[in-house]
């Protein structure tokens, strides 16, 4: 149901109903958005969802030092 998207388990999942990325209309900022977004709107909760995915996989201090 619209407005009830809670989880963002993978980067492909939308953070909320403002995410317009789809197969038919792909978002040109998809990659940056997943790393430091959202870009099309401002929402701390949506930012947090992306950071949660990043933090989950950040297994070592050197993980981002590439």
């Amino acid at each position, binding site marked *: 149901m619209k407005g009830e998207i809670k989880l963002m388990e993978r980067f492909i999942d939308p953070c909320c109903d403002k995410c317009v*990325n789809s197969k038919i209309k*792909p978002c040109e900022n*998809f990659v940056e958005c997943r*790393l430091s977004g959202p870009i099309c709107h401002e929402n701390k909760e949506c930012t947090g969802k992306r950071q949660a995915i990043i933090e989950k*996989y*950040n*297994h*070592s201090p050197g*993980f981002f030092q590439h």
Partner: protein
Amino acid sequence: MYDKQILICAGTGCISSGALDVKGSLEKELEKHNLQDKVRIILSGCHGFCEKGPIFIVYPEDIFYCGVTAEDMPELVEEYLVKGNIVDRLLYKDPITGESVTSHENIPFYRQQKRLVLRNCGVIDPENIDEYIIRDGYSGLKKSLQMDPKEIIDTVKNSGLRGLGGAGFPTGRKWETAYKIESDKKYVVCNADEGDPGAFMDRSVLEGDPHSVLEGLMIAGKAIGSDEAYVYVRAEYPLAVRRLRKAIAQAEEYGLLGENILNSGFNFKVNVKEGAGAFVCGESTALVISIEGKRGMPKPLPRPRTTEAGLWDKPTLLNNVKTLSVIPQIINNGADWFAGIGTEKCKGTAVFALTGKTNCSGLIEVPMGIKLGKIIHEIGGGIPGGKKFKAVQTGGPSGGCLPESKLDLAVDFDTLLQAGSMMGSGGMVVLDETTCMVDVARYFLNFTVEESCGQCTPCRSGTLQMLEILNDICEGNGREGDVELLLELGKSIIDSSICGLGKSAPNPVLSTIDYFRDEYEAHIKDKTCPALVCKNLIIYDIDQEACTGCGRCRKNCPAGAIAGDKKEPHVIDQEKCTKCAICYDLCPDRFSAVKCLTGEKITAMAKGGGN
């Protein structure tokens, strides 16, 4: 969030050593201690140190356990994850000092490396596109979609990247040629037909970081104006094929592959073609023909370049796995960043499968220009068992053998070629004093004879003639003039073969004659194998004064060739002896009564002179 993340290497090598059993056992133990939600297990691609597999690293503290088994899991979980005590017996031990090393970054094997191509191998879960994206994945693609094709090509040209499949042709120039040719259809092909014995660099990249190859293919497609690619990969690499297909499906699901990628209007499709494992299909024209569904054989000269008329006669850009894998980083970080690594003429890094007589073997990546000796003695940890270094064979069966005097050589495409060897796809086999160089040349030539497509006479018959001469020499039937004949045949094959396989096939023979001619002469003139390898030129004998009659050799001789009473010196019946060397290996060091003899020593023994 997790307290610990455990990375288990799940490259083909570690899986064959039991990595998946380790994972299964670890899961059970974590559940037993109710830690399943606090500890995340990551199955990564190849970590490189295959000899010590399965590799098991605990993060965030980076505790490097190696050679772990499923049976070790109860102790590891109980002692380390529950109580916090490091399990010393599973840590890496320095081969010289014997000291334990906890962090993988402090292990010399890793410390000297510079990982660009392998930067994600052993770091991320290759089956998880999100982890690749977090490590800047697909950022290079995004950037390239906003660039003019010429701008992309200039970046690659200015980076100085040369093809990492072995030939070292400037990648940017190849891309420029493909870009300039006008055609309604162009293809990009990834050459993953890795066929050198002992080489597994391409396989490891595909298994450990498949998205980097896909991203490289797409950037190449954008640069030359292509919308379709093929990855030609050996069917003998099932794990690489599976992970590649999974990566393609994920990228398609994410809209990073397919139609209108990132709303740019750029479309790109990647196909996977599994090859049947013929070595010759690594040659560009044979590879293209094989993709078309025909028997893979090189096209005879004169022929157009693949960039002009390749797959289905369309312009085709062919790059190796490693070359494509490093492209996204070059686009992301810029040409100057890449050009700042390596030497003046060879930029970036080289990936080698370091094997043979070294203390540490596996997959390594080093900056171009590193000294050959540094790779062998520092990264490889030197020669085991106190033996002497003899030679290093680089470039696979088309490469050559370099002696100790070349250890100061700065490794890159050009210096190796000048020294009589080649970079090739990256095989590096270290040989010690117990290796017969004639036998080594014979081994590699036998491979190329088997793999010759048979299309041209010099390669089909010439290499066979060379092999027969080498067989004669190793069997004690060498004749005066054989070395000169080998040199002449080798030159003719190089001059007249139609493809790179034939033109490079004599290399192992020519380079060993160049640097180890005395060994050839010893086999031919003195009927001696100085390394004590060639069976027809050696015998095993028991020193009557040293033998105490312990009976180990007699009891274990599979041919029943050893006789002797208890506590009395034993003797070997030369008629029955098969020269398996079991007696030689089993005789206790404190006696060393079993001797291996060659040449004059055999003659002396026959005359009753003993040893």
